[in-house]
């Protein structure tokens, strides 16, 4: 089992009072809570913080944790003999009895995570008290990314994940699951989906938790997506913008010919109706081609000559309003 220094995680001393622990937890939660921070590592960091707080705020769990001794973070360790027994001063029996009673197993703590161990703290201790108390299973969230092309026609996702579950002996173990989820066409970026009854198992007749699937779109090399509308940058030359032209524009449903009117401006949006993402009601969003005026990187002699001539004969002053 790998040691986690809960005091270090919460940035408090080993002699910190409960108020100091609470204060530090709240400060760190404001910094790393995934619903508050934009830090991509926030969720992982907050998981550690929450785990440390759940143990240290509870007097009995903290005493049992302290009995483990001081180790380096990430260091492999084994709890001392009789650890968690009735000798911890609380006289309520061994809360980890279910681990130490696994006969024939070399070291029952080998494949146990410290968090799972403390999540299991009261299972052995209060089994008789909680025997008739139904507990709802935990909810879990999964994130998956799909391409715009897949979102356009609907797809299936092969999902593999592990959730902590109690086995018949009451031990919390990571149990792998593998499912195929059908993603219907019409989902938008950041769609959340609910899979009822696919979360953690309930206890004592409690209902199973739920699983939430967060769908996001992979970045696309051509399109940006906003709800059901798509946006594409459409590069055209200044002379195409001035004189007008017809260009081929890619869409998710194949190419279309788009007429660019004479006198088009940089940044102007051309709407191509019903070429965006599908909606639930069978409709489609729109595709917006955003005109980007681009100059040739290198002018040929004849191009330079023509542009020089244009400069000489044109009376257009785009900065007239400065005067």
């Amino acid at each position, binding site marked *: 089992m790998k040691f986690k220094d809960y005091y270090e995680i919460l940035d408090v001393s080993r002699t910190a009072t409960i108020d100091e622990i609470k204060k530090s937890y709240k400060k760190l939660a404001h910094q790393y809570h995934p*619903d508050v921070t934009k830090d991509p590592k926030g969720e992982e960091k907050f998981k550690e913080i929450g785990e440390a707080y759940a143990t240290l705020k509870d007097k009995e769990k903290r005493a049992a944790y302290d009995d483990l001794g001081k180790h380096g973070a990430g260091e492999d360790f084994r709890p001392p003999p009789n650890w968690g027994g009735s000798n911890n001063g609380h006289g309520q029996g061994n809360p980890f009895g279910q681990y130490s009673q696994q006969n024939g197993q070399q070291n029952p703590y080998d494949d146990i995570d410290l968090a799972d161990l403390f999540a299991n703290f009261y299972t052995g201790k209060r089994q008789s008290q909680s025997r008739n108390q139904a507990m709802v299973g935990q909810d879990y969230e999964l994130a998956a990314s799909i391409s715009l092309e897949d979102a356009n026609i609907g797809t299936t996702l092969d999902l593999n994940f592990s959730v902590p579950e109690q086995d018949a002996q009451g031990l919390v173990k990571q*149990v792998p699951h593998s*499912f*195929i*989820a059908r993603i*219907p066409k019409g989902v938008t970026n950041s769609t959340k989906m609910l899979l009822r*009854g696919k979360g953690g198992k309930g206890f004592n007749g409690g209902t199973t938790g*739920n699983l939430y699937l967060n769908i996001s779109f992979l970045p696309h090399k051509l399109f940006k997506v*906003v709800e059901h509308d798509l946006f594409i940058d459409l590069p055209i030359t200044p002379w195409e913008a001035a004189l007008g032209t017809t260009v081929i524009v890619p869409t998710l449903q194949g190419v279309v010919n788009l007429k660019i009117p004479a006198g088009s401006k940089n940044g102007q949006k051309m709407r191509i109706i019903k070429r965006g993402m599908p909606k639930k009601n069978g409709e489609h969003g729109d595709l917006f081609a955003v005109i980007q005026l681009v100059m040739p990187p290198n002018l040929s002699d004849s191009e330079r000559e023509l542009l020089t001539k244009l400069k000489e004969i044109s009376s257009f002053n785009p900065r007239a309003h400065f005067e």
Partner: protein
Amino acid sequence: MKTENTNRIWPDLIVLNEHHTLSFDELIALSGLSRTELQQLVENGALNPEHLIETSFKNTNISTWHFSSHHLVSVRQLSRLKRDFELESNSLSLILVFLERIRELEKQLQHLDGAN
């Protein structure tokens, strides 16, 4: 370790958006908030039911609130914040209003981002 339910297809996947509604009881079961807390959110105008469905049972009319399922996303977020920050119940309505406002502003920002 044993793998369970390999290659099963989830048939009952619900997209949380304005096209799908949840009853009040479903919202209680899914949100992590209590009936009283959710009732307070509705009474304070922070959570607006989509419609009220009236059913008759043993000659008694029963009215049930139904909510657009996308509300579940913000209500669960509220529930997590309440749990992790140990918030008081009377602050929940205010927080939900701000969460919804942030969600709307982020959506508008996304539109502007796409358009520019």
